[in-house]
């Protein structure tokens, strides 16, 4: 869907390029997370996709179309754009903010009104209540919901998101991440998502590109990066607790084994992750817990050794 080939950008006066011969192929429907330390080129790379920054060399194609062959303004109208500070227009109502791109595309008024209400409802903002409000009347989380609705307005196949949840408190952030993943499940967008938070990257990413000094160090699925960090830099970047982070990506349902635990054993929901399961076993000082699925059925267990087996089993190293 998005092909980036040999992309290079050097800012005037900078000793080394911000983005250095970077190539990435992002599939349709993927959430590609760009992550790395400050100055690694992640935001610059993202901003070159909708030509907010023009590359020095290299090529970017969206759905096969070279972005430099399209008018930059037209291009941006077809690519959703969400930034950390949201950038809602303070003098416009929530409805007018969301209507920005449809208006630029000259949709008729009735269609715009319908679309705005539909989108506000989608991001869990009651249209009747919020349509005519102004941005300053909203909380940080609500502003970012509107920011996401505004980016989705013209139904762009590709969205660029620059630390969209970075300015929110941890609870709001987690809630918005979950909601956004649910929303994407229905909408099937191709997303380029910039963050510096490894936990967010592991949670949101279909694949994660770890950048350093303008180059991709590793581009892989979250579980593969945790299981097989490409080098010492990636290993340090994902953190010492990468085994626990891997467990957090695995669900109890997938890795439970048949059996019934002895009476008095703790219970864990099938929808929980293995990190929670391990934590429960350690806290209760037990080797085994009963798994309870959504309907309340039992008959499967999770044990310390089944958790270890899950870590050993997943995932195979991916070559790329």
């Amino acid at each position, binding site marked *: 869907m998005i092909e980036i080939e040999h992309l290079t950008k050097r800012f005037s006066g900078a000793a080394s390029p911000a983005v250095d011969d970077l190539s990435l192929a992002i599939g349709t429907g993927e959430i590609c997370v760009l992550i790395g330390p400050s100055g690694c080129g992640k935001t610059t790379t993202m901003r070159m996709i*909708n030509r*907010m920054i023009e590359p020095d060399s290299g090529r970017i194609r969206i759905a096969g179309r070279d972005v430099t062959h399209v008018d930059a*303004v*037209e*291009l*941006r*109208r*077809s690519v959703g*754009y969400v*930034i950390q*500070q*949201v*950038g*809602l*227009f*303070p*003098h*416009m*109502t929530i409805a007018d903010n969301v209507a*920005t*791109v449809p208006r*630029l595309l000259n949709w008729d008024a009735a269609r715009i009104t319908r679309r705005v209400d539909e989108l506000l409802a989608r991001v869990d903002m009651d249209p009747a209540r919020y349509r005519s409000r*102004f*941005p*300053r009347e909203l909380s940080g989380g609500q502003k970012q919901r509107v920011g996401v609705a*505004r*980016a989705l307005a013209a139904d762009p196949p590709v969205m*660029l998101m620059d630390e969209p949840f970075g300015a929110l408190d941890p609870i709001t952030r987690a809630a918005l991440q979950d909601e956004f993943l649910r929303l994407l499940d229905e909408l099937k967008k191709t997303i380029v998502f910039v963050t510096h938070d490894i936990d967010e990257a592991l949670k949101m990413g279909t694949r994660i590109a770890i950048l350093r000094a303008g180059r991709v160090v590793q581009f892989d699925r979250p579980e593969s990066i945790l299981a097989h960090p490409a080098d010492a830099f990636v290993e340090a970047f994902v953190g010492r607790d990468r085994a626990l982070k891997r467990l957090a990506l695995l669900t109890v349902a997938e890795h439970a084994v048949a059996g019934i635990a002895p009476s008095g054993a703790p219970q864990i929901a099938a929808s929980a992750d293995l990190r929670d399961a391990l934590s429960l076993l350690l806290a209760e000082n037990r080797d085994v817990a009963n798994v309870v699925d959504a309907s309340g059925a039992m008959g499967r267990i999770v044990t310390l050794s089944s958790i270890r087996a899950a870590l050993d089993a997943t995932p195979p190293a991916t070559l790329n």
Partner: protein
Amino acid sequence: MTTLGEAWSYLLAHLPQFTTALGVHVALSAAALAIGAAIAVPAGIYAAHRPRAAFATINVANIGRTLPSLAVLALVMPLLGTGFAPSLFALSLLALPPIVLNAIAGIRGIDPEVVDAARGMGMTPGAILRHIEWPLALPVIFAGLRTAAIQVISGAVLAAFIGGGGLGDFITAGIAMMAVPQLLVGAIPVTLLAIGADFAFGMLQRRITPAGVREA
């Protein structure tokens, strides 16, 4: 009280001259403000988007602002002579600095994230100016007009020195002849004009401030 009474009698006795002077004063101030705004608002908006031009404009405007009004009028006289037109020219110059400075400050004071979001969604530079920058900068631009209006109304008193007419005629004559009532017939209306303009622009400024950014 008697002085005010005498001033009142003087006013009634010289009503035609007073009305003419008041008319000239208002016309001179309004025209100077309009010319100043027509030049300084576009210039300020232009400069605000170009760091070097903004730097140069801000410095020139700051020098301009420190020049005494009388000096500007005195400098204009040898070049353009005396009368209404040279006075108008000088007063228009006086109006420029506060308007241009506020226009630059107004545009530059907008949250860069807001402009970045507008650009990123595919607004053209013209659309960003019309729909984002102009409405958000307008209250600050208006504050510049307000300052300029007061300066021009008081500066127009000095037009009397170069034959521009206006209420300054009564003041200069009053001083020259030590006639306090005559002086007051010029001074009190000028003060009221300045206060009135300040009030009117203040009201307008609140009116044109977009609802979403208005102080509660």
